[in-house]
């Protein structure tokens, strides 16, 4: 009876050990692949989804910068036109 219980416990423990070891090897392989592809940041391995999110943030920042430049250009053109009008000059043709 005791021997049977020990054998059952060993079988369960064996399956557990194999699963755990396999999972840790898989985790290491994934980690090594992420390290090799250079997608490791200071905070650790980043997933593809995180990469896409970071790219989207960078694109949003760049479009904001373009928009602010466009607004600034319009403001400068308006100021130029006003200065010309006050001085009685024709605005320079592009």
């Amino acid at each position, binding site marked *: 009876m005791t*021997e049977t219980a*020990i054998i059952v*416990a*060993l079988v369960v*423990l*064996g399956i*557990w*050990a*194999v*699963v*755990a*070891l396999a*999972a*840790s*090897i898989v*985790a*290491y392989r994934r*980690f*090594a692949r992420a*390290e090799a592809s250079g997608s*490791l940041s200071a*905070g*650790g*391995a980043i997933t593809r989804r995180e990469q896409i999110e970071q790219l989207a943030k960078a694109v949003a920042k760049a479009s904001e910068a373009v928009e602010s430049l466009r607004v600034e250009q319009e403001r400068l053109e308006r100021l130029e036109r006003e200065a010309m009008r006050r001085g009685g000059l024709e605005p320079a043709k592009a």
Partner: protein
Amino acid sequence: MFETFLKWVIFRAVLGLLPLAFSAFRMWAEHRSVTLEALFSRGELLLVACALSAGGIGELMASSAKQPILRLLLGGGSVVCLMFGALTYSHVSAQFSSSVPYDQSFVAVVSCFVYAFSLAFAAGCVILAEIGKKKL
């Protein structure tokens, strides 16, 4: 990673078996038959397995690995191996010291299995700890 793992294999897994290897060598030198039963029937291998499991638990506790399920699987398995090995050793040594007959070959086989499982869990713990170290 490979260096750490190799260090662990040599200095924990293999050198831990050195006393038993010397015991086997002595048996061989004395022209006695070197069998599993003769080597492991008193549960010495269980002690080595306990030391391996404890080392694995220590590695895992000190690491900053972020995989919670894997940590539970490996840490829990190591704790179970440690407890199983310690309990079995205490049982076997009590029977041995009180000269109660017991199935020596069964103890030897159980010891081998517990050692193998402890080795697997501890190896997993070392791998996970190394991932945690590299991610820092």
